[in-house]
């Protein structure tokens, strides 16, 4: 070893006592992370544990409220990605930051300064491709590349800017298994050449197979920092999920919890070997079979990108099946997670937003006075606070918007309860009170006999409401008992038998 023991001590990245608040939520509470040079470091945690926030701070995209940052041994004030790049930090985001119509070389050149010398970028990329074994055509248009090739472009972008520390946010979530393995192998060899890799993941297998060290975040705190050799899937799961999670549960279990021993109720939704494909042609759900009965809430749990997005939309009738059979009522209510994008017309009145339901199949005149009366009754029933039914949606608070959406999706034409409803992160962005109201409405819908399919990235919300839980992992579906440990383990792809 040419450089003495000092270099072993030196960290490529050291974050100490990092605090970060978003409004009233504390995303990071005195979090720390120490990444040794020349290693692959896995950063683990549940959805919302603060992994991404911590790494966005390391890349200069967020400023911490408190704490110190050391990059390659030097204290660093990172106020922009440019300052992080200048210190040799590169980041590959989960959602790529590429210009689709530009070539690979043009995308790489985008971050540069001064004169644009595309030829130099192209030859630089060719040289890089040879050195790293990346098969990248610098003159190919990015939109024509596969997802894994686009990811290589992102990595190449970082490397062309001389990154020695590469942070990757869930890099394998978008890749098919064979490509994932290839990427992990490459990251390993990259680190072996003296560089450093931080891998944000919630897949335990990945963390254990290629990383040297592991850090686990839970609720914004660093709860475990150890060498991978000294950890097991078991100890990591425990660190990620915490011990007894039941004490965090509010409101207690619903009264009508239907176990497997209860008589089966009439099935409203029945899926048989359903396979779903996303917009880019990647298989997201593989041969899933399940049943949702009347009067139950079926919770869906899964880490980001496990296929829940596609599954929910298929059940709601918004995504066609690739294969299989799905029996469902003709009109299923749907509350999508991105309310402003997919559920409401912000500049239209509450009345018009109610009329939006089934607007695609309506004929002839719209009797606005009738819709207005219907809206008023929905507002009364769901306690929607607004200056009136003609108030623009934009002027209504998020919680009240969501209540109106839920009311609309639960009410069908003849003002009876919908037989089935799919809700996706129904309380995202809502305050505690509004969230509790939404929960009450969902329970009431169930008690009135509706089949409710609920997904939340907050596993506690799923456990709080669900009568049964279906866990998604890498496109496969498994039924799990309403039990935090088991569900958490299955979500992370940990092996082990589940007692059902």
């Amino acid at each position: 070893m040419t450089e003495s023991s000092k270099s072993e001590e030196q960290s490529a990245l050291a974050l100490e006592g990092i605090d970060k608040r978003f409004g009233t939520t504390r995303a990071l509470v005195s979090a720390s992370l120490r990444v040794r040079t020349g290693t692959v470091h896995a950063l683990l945690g549940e959805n919302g544990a603060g992994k991404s926030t911590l790494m966005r701070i390391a890349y200069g995209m967020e400023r911490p409220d408190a704490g110190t940052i050391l990059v390659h041994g030097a204290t660093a004030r990172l106020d922009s990605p440019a300052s992080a790049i200048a210190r040799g930090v590169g980041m590959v985001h989960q959602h790529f930051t590429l210009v689709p119509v530009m070539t690979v070389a043009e995308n790489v050149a985008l971050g540069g300064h001064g004169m644009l010398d595309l030829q130099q970028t192209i030859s630089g990329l060719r040289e890089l491709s040879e050195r790293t074994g990346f098969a990248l055509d610098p003159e190919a248009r990015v939109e024509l590349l596969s997802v894994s090739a686009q990811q290589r472009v992102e990595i190449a972008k970082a490397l062309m800017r001389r990154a020695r520390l590469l942070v990757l946010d869930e890099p394998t979530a978008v890749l098919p298994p064979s490509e994932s393995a290839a990427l992990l192998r490459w990251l390993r060899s990259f680190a072996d050449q003296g560089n450093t890799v931080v891998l944000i993941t919630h897949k335990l297998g990945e963390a254990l197979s290629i990383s040297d060290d592991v850090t686990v975040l839970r609720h914004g705190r660093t709860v475990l920092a150890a060498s991978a050799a000294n950890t097991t899937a078991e100890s990591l799961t425990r660190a990620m999920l915490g011990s007894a999670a039941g004490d965090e549960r509010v409101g207690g279990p619903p009264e009508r919890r239907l176990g497997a021993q209860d008589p089966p109720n009439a099935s409203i939704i029945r899926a048989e070997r359903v396979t779903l494909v996303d917009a880019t042609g990647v298989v997201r759900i593989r041969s899933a079979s399940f049943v949702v009965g009347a009067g139950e809430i079926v919770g869906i749990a899964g880490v980001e990108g496990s296929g829940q997005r596609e599954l929910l939309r298929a059940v709601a009738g918004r995504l066609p099946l690739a294969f299989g059979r799905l029996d469902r009522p003709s009109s299923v209510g749907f509350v999508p997670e991105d309310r402003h994008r997919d559920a409401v017309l912000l500049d239209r009145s509450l009345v018009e937003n109610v009329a939006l339901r089934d607007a695609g199949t309506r004929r002839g005149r719209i009797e606005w006075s009738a819709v207005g009366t219907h809206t008023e009754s929905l507002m009364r029933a769901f306690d929607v606070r607004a200056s009136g039914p003609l108030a623009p949606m934009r002027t209504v608070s998020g919680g009240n918007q969501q209540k109106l959406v839920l009311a609309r999706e639960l009410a069908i034409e003849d003002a009876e309860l919908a037989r089935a409803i799919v809700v996706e992160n129904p309380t995202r962005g809502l305050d505690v009170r509004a969230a509790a109201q939404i929960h009450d409405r969902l329970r009431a819908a169930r008690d009135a006999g509706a089949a409710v399919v609920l997904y939340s990235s907050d596993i506690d919300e799923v456990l709080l409401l669900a009568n049964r839980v279906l866990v998604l992992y890498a496109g496969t579906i498994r039924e799990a008992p309403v039990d935090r440990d088991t569900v958490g383990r299955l979500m992370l792809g940990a092996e082990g038998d589940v007692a059902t």
Partner: protein
Amino acid sequence: MSLRDEARVRAQAVMRAATRELALATIVVASIGGATALLLVGVGFPVLPGLSALWTGAFGSWYAFTSATLIRSVPLMLTGGAVAVAFRGGVLNIGAEGQLLLGAAAAVAVALAVPAGGKLFPLVIVAALLAAAVAGAMWAGVAAYLRARYHVLEVISTIMLNFIALHVVSYLVRGPLQEPTHVYPQSATIADALHLPHLPAAGRLHAGFALALALAIAAGWMLRNTAAGFRIVAIGESPSAAASAGGIDVRATSARVFLLSGALAGLAGGVEVLGVTFALYENISPGYGYTAIAVALLARLDPWRVVATAVLFGALEAGAGAMQRDAGVPSTLVSVIEAALILAVVVAQAIRARRQASADEPTADT
């Protein structure tokens, strides 16, 4: 709330809205007057004679009002309505000019193809107008297809199609539709019996005005009261929410809006040749299809308000002519006013939109 209270509240709301509209209209007209005066001073023309000619030319007499102002408002009302409906549905149809030109060509072709004489003339007028609407819709359909199939931006394709339409007319009046002596680049004049009838006691104003008025009212009613109209508003506001929450076929709906818009613009061409020019030639439109964008924007994309803004722009065009004739002020000066007006409206809308967006963006959750 009792029924009487409710009726009172509603009446108050209507009054408030009417007052607001009236105030806005006053501001617009006053600023046009002011801006014209300023420009006249700046360019060095006598202010009072200029303004007076502008006013007299547009509103000086019943004859000026009907036969100069209102007659010019007819194509503006139809194309303005076409643009308003399209923009409301998120379709940026800049091609009303080209659609108008092809509509005019189609109407003339039908009118000239029918041998003179016979009792079928009213039917021929209807057929010619229908042909104009169909031609306009087909021309818009080219851009609609390119948009739906290949994601070609309609702003670009419709502008390009405008140029092509101009050259198509150029060719027609020198080729298949040229008048029999083959001297002038224009079509033969259509038979007197095929002219649109004049409205009673309204000078040269023809029945096309009534048609434009009826269609503007119908378009506004459709957007407000029918499911089809609501679909247009919904996709214009948020295609993603329209598709996800409304189950609306966004592609099909925007294609239909595009065709409807083209039909209205094409009809404007048909009405113009049957009511005013009685023949096809190259400069049949002084840019009605472009002014239509201003007409629609000033009306905040509401076909009912388009009636008012079309009359306003008709008055400006009529007054501009009079100003040039009687006060020697170039009519292009009024184009400057029109352009300034459009800019003011666009900026005001952008400011309002930004204020709304920043006022109530919800706090992010991460």
